[in-house]
């Protein structure tokens, strides 16, 4: 979250003082950032909805994807497209590793009482995320890395100079979310996933193997987090320091929208994205995250289950 700050400063310097243009600028920048947040949070909420797991290594997986894409493109020189694919692939593998090495052993453990599994999954994935973060820092240093964008150049929309990459980011995010919607609502596998999020026991009674559904969900999650991570790397750049803030932002968007509700997270992502952009442009980039945090606290008091959450 903090790494987005320099972008706003840059954009603010380019801006002439016209208010209508500033409004468009906020509209466009806010949209791209919100779409990115939405993509990052969707996978997170999907996993919670289906298997009740809050994956605190989320930020680490996103950064791993971005750093892998960066390393493939700038060290191995495989090109931007292949680099992006490698990034997504790494995220997928890391997501599977998270499930099989951390989450599944805790869920299957007989020594951990059921009511404490939640905190064990939280602690376990948190430690796992720190391990990934430290490995990235060890092999690739703490420096911020910007993945070479797939599309370059700048276009003018409504008088606002906008990098093509920003438009590309927004379009890809929307497309991927639309595809996810189709997958969940229109395919057999997707319907099984949806059913599992409503009633896991009912799904097993229908003869579907719950573990297989979990694997599908973690695969979807890995791909979503990977795409979000690579896009973030192209758009704003990442470093191993962004792990914590990324997890925190996904966590707060998901809670704001209501845990487990995908549409709630989408709305919340846009609320948080625009609120942050507005604050950065109109008040000061230093106060960027504060209104969103206040809103979160406010919503927790008024409506503890979030905007569209069911308890």
């Amino acid at each position, binding site marked *: 979250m903090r790494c987005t700050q320099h972008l706003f400063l840059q954009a603010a310097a380019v801006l002439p003082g016209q208010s209508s243009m500033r409004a468009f600028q906020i509209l466009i920048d806010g949209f791209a950032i919100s779409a990115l947040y939405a993509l990052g949070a969707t996978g997170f909420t999907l996993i919670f909805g289906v298997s009740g797991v*809050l994956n605190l290594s989320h930020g680490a997986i996103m950064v791993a994807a971005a750093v892998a894409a960066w390393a493939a493109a700038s060290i191995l020189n495989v090109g931007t497209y292949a680099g992006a694919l490698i990034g997504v692939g790494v995220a997928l593998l890391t997501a599977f590793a998270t499930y099989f090495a*951390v989450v599944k*052993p*805790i869920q299957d*453990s007989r*020594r*951990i009482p059921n*009511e404490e599994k*939640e*905190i*064990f999954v*939280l*602690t*376990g994935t*948190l*430690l*796992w995320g*720190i*391990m990934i973060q*430290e*490995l990235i*820092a*060890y092999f690739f240093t703490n420096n911020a890395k910007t993945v070479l964008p797939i599309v370059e150049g700048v276009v003018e929309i409504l008088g606002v100079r906008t990098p093509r990459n920003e438009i590309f980011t927004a379009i890809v995010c929307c497309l991927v979310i639309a595809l996810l919607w189709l997958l969940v609502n229109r395919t057999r596998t997707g319907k099984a996933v949806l059913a599992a999020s409503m009633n896991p026991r009912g799904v097993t009674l229908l003869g579907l193997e719950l573990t297989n559904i979990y694997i599908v969900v973690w695969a979807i999650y890995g791909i979503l987090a990977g795409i979000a991570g690579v896009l973030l790397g192209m758009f704003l750049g990442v470093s191993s320091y962004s792990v*914590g803030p990324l997890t*925190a932002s996904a*966590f*707060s968007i998901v*809670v704001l929208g209501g*845990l487990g509700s995908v549409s709630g997270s989408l709305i919340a992502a846009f609320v948080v994205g625009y609120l942050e952009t507005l604050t950065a442009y109109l008040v000061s980039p*230093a*106060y960027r*995250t*504060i209104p969103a*945090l*206040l809103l*979160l*606290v406010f919503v*927790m*008091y008024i409506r*503890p*289950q979030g905007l569209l959450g069911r308890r």
Partner: protein
Amino acid sequence: MSTFFTSRLFFISLALVVIAATLPLYVSGYVLGLLTVAFYFGVFAMAWDLLFGFAGEVNFGPTFLIGVGAYTAGILNAQFGWSVYPCIVLGALASVIAGLVLALPALRVRGPYFGLTTLVAVLMLQNFIVVFADLTGGEIGLTIPDVITIDAGANYWIALGFMTISAAILYGLSQSPIGLVLQASGQDPVQAGALGFNIVKHKLAAFIVSAFFSGLSGALLVFYFGTASVGTVVDVAVGVNVIVSAVLGGRRTVLGAALGAIFLIVAGEFLRPTGELATFIVSAVALLVVLFFPGGFLGAALSREARS
């Protein structure tokens, strides 16, 4: 309670404290300094264990309580020139107020929702410190002019004594009827309420006690370090260390949390030659303990004793 004084655990703890108290006579100041910090961390972890292990509240923001205590004491000393002891007392009191603020959402929301609220509390405190940099020293930190004492041995004894007294109070509380009611209300609040226990009162008490010890320890730590900064007392990473200590040592044991904290800090120091990989190794060990010995150090030891 009376069985405790004859139990093996009591004698082991007593022996450990006595041995620890003689350390300044023959180890270097460097080791003492390390252990002093570890003891204050032990109190953080024990206070956290009281909230999580007994009241069942997933508190991701132990550093909110610690930070409020530490910064209140630090600011009063550095900006207003108050002397050390009133600063420490007021730091602990400020932390109790912070604990009450944190307790309000806990009475409404549970589980991950409360966890997030506590995380947000830490982030808000962090933002507050950065925004009001004139008062708090901002991201660089606040330099504290006064110290309790500069003698390494005396500092060590203060930390050890403080940890021992805190451990005795927190452990006693956890084994008392209050601890049992807390445990019941953490596991099933509706049923515990139906049995006629005032859950709100007990939970508030748990928050107050936990906040008091966190804040007191934070304030003492600030006067030991001579500086208060986000990186040492507020950052989420510090909170993670506190949580990991408690889980490592064995949750719901209170004393184990202190062991976990000492282990974590000493292990981090031993691994210093490995450079940047130190945090990786500590996290990996902690993850293995979480996966294979979910009861933690003390949990595993106690269950073996119970079996034999």
